[in-house]
C-alpha cells in the first residue's frame, strides 16, 4: 500500500477547484463574462452614440441598421443597452462595495466590542430594517434628487444591515475561541487581533454575501430608475430604459424599447446569483471537512 502524498492547498485554491465542479455556476460565470465584455468595450460592438438623437429614425422596430430598434428620440437601443450596462454594473459594484465596508465595520464593532456598542449598532440595524429598503430609498431619493452618485450612496448606505449581522455573528463565534484568547493574552492590540486573526475567517462566508449584494444593488438601481428616482436621463441605465414600459402605449406597441434591458438585467442578476451560489458551496466549511 503506497502512502498517499499529503499536500495542503490554500483555501482559495481548494474553493476554486470545488467551484469549477459546479457546472451551472461555471456557465453563469462565462455568460457574465460575455455581458461584462460587451458593456465594458461597448464602442467596439456598436457604431452609434448612446446619446445621439436622430429625429429621422424615432420609434423604429429592430432592423439591419438598428439591431434592437430605436427609442422615442431615435437613439439606438442596442447601443444604449450596452452603455446602460456599464452604468448599472458600476453602480452595482460600487454600492455593494460601500454596503459591505459599512457592514464589516459595524459588524466588527458590534461583535467584538459588545456591550453598549453592540446594543447601539443592533438597535440602529433594527430601525433601518423596519423599513423596506426601497421604501426609505424612495423617500431619500425624492429629497436628494436623482443622480448616479446619490444612487450609489443611497443603496450602499441602506443595504448594509444583512452584512453587519453576518459579520457580527461570525465575530461573536470567533471571539470566544482559544486562538483569539491567546492573541489577547499575548497583548496584541485590538486592531491587530481583528484584522489579522479574525477577519480572514470572515472572508469565506462573506464572499457569497458580496456577490448577492452586487446583484441586489443592480436590481435596486434598476428599480429606482424604473420609477424615475434613480439615474436621470439621458444617461442610459437598464433601469431607466425600462421606465419606457410604464407608458402603456410603448409597452404594447414598441416592446423592443424595454425588453432588451429587462433581459440583460435578469440574465446578469441570475448569473451573479448562480456564481454566488457556487461560491457559497465552494467555501462551505462543512463540505471542506468532508472532502478527502
Amino acid at each position, binding site marked *: 500500500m503506497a502512502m498517499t502524498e499529503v499536500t495542503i492547498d490554500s483555501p482559495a485554491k481548494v474553493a476554486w477547484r470545488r467551484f469549477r465542479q459546479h457546472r*451551472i455556476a461555471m456557465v453563469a460565470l462565462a455568460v457574465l463574462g460575455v455581458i461584462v465584455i460587451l458593456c465594458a468595450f461597448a464602442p467596439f460592438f456598436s457604431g452609434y452614440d448612446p446619446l445621439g438623437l436622430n429625429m429621422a429614425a424615432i420609434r423604429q422596430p429592430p432592423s439591419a441598421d438598428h439591431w434592437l430598434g430605436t427609442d422615442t428620440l431615435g437613439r439606438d437601443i442596442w447601443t444604449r443597452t450596452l452603455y446602460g450596462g456599464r452604468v448599472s454594473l458600476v453602480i452595482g459594484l460600487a454600492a455593494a462595495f460601500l454596503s459591505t465596508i459599512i457592514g464589516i465595520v459595524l459588524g466588527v464593532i458590534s461583535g467584538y466590542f459588545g456591550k453598549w456598542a453592540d446594543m447601539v449598532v443592533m*438597535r440602529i440595524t*433594527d*430601525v433601518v*430594517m*423596519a*423599513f*423596506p*429598503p*426601497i*421604501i*426609505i430609498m*424612495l*423617500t*431619500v*431619493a*425624492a*429629497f*436628494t434628487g436623482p443622480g448616479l452618485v446619490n444612487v450609489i450612496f443611497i443603496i450602499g448606505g441602506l443595504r448594509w444591515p444583512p452584512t453587519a449581522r453576518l459579520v457580527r455573528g461570525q465575530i461573536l463565534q470567533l471571539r470566544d475561541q482559544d486562538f483569539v484568547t491567546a492573541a489577547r493574552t499575548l497583548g496584541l492590540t485590538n486592531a491587530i487581533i481583528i484584522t489579522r486573526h479574525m477577519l480572514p475567517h470572515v472572508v469565506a462566508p462573506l464572499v457569497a454575501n458580496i456577490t448577492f449584494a452586487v*446583484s441586489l444593488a443592480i*436590481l435596486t438601481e*434598476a*428599480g429606482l430608475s*424604473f*420609477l*424615475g*428616482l434613480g439615474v436621470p436621463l439621458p444617461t442610459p441605465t437598464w433601469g431607466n430604459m*425600462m421606465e419606457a*414600459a*410604464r407608458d*402603456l402605449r410603448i*409597452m*404594447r406597441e414598441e*416592446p423592443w424599447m*424595454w425588453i432588451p434591458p*429587462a433581459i440583460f*438585467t*435578469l440574465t446578469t*442578476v*441570475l448569473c451573479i*446569483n*448562480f456564481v454566488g*451560489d457556487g461560491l457559497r458551496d465552494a467555501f462551505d466549511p462543512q463540505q471542506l471537512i468532508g472532502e478527502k
Partner: protein
Amino acid sequence: MTRYIIRRLLLAIPVLFMVTVLVFALIELAPGDVVDFFANPEVMAGMSEADLEALRERLGLNDPAPVRYLHWLGGVLQGDFGYSLIRSEPVGELLLRRFGNSMMIMGIGLFVAVTFGISLGIYTALRQYSVADFTISFLSFVGISMPAFIAGILALYIFSVQLGWFPAGGMRSPGVHTLGDLLHHLILPALVLSIIHMATFMRYTRFSMLDVLKQEYVVTATAKGMPRRIVVMRHAFRNGLIPVVTMIGYSIPELVVGAVFLETIFSFPGMGKLYFDSVISRDFPVIMAANLVIAVFVLAANLITDVAYAAIDPRIRLE
C-alpha cells in the same frame, strides 16, 4: 407564552420610537426649505416672501425641530396624521382605505406563496436529485433573482396586453362592483407578487426539510414504525417549519416593496401606489404617515413571526 408576547411588545417600543424619529428626520434633513417640498411650485411662484412667511408660521414651520417633532408625534398618537397637500383629504382616512386595498394584494400573494412554496419545498426535499427536484429548484432560482417590477411588466405585457386575459390595470371596471370583477383585477398582480416569494419559501423549506430528514429523531420515528406520512409531516415538517416561519416574517418588507412596484405598474389604488405618487409630488404628510404605517406593519409582522416561532418551538416558548 403571554409573558413572552409582552416582553416582545416592550422590546418593540424603543424601536418604534426610533422609527418615528427617523421618519421625521428624513423629511427634516432634506436639503432646502421645507416649504419647497410641499408647496406647489406654480402656486409658490405667485407668492410673495411675506405670503411664504405667513404660510410657514401657519404650519408651525418656524418652530425649532424638536417642537415640531413633538407636535407631529402628538398628532400621530391621537390618530391625526395631518392633511394631504395634494389630495385635500385627511391622511389617516386616505391611508386606511389604500392600506385595505393593498392588504388584498399582499394577503392573496402571501397566502399563495406560503401554501405553494412550502408544498413544493417538501415535495422536492423528498425527491432530492430527481428531475422534478432539479427543475423546480432551477425555476425557483430564477424566481428569487426576478425583481417584482420586471416580473410585473413582463406579466402585464404577456397576460394583459398580448393575451388579453386580465385587465391592464386598476382595481374595478368603471361602474362594476362585483367580487368577480375585483378578483379579475387583483389576480395578476397578486400572483406576480406571490411567485417571487414562493421561490424563496420553496428554497427554504427544501433546505430545511433536507436537514431535518437527516436528524436522529426522524430515524427514531421510523424505527418506531410510524408510517412515512406521519414521519414526514408530524416529525420532520414541524421541525422543518421553524426556520421557514422566520423567513416568512423576514419577507414582509420585500412584500411591501413588491406592492409599491406592482401597484404602480398595474395602476392599482393601494398604499404602494399612494406612497409612490406622494414621493413624486412630495406630499410630505402622506410620506411621513405612510413610512410610519409601513414600519409599524413590518414590526408587527416581525412580532407575529416571533410569536408563531415560539408557538411551534417549545424550546423558545418555555425558556
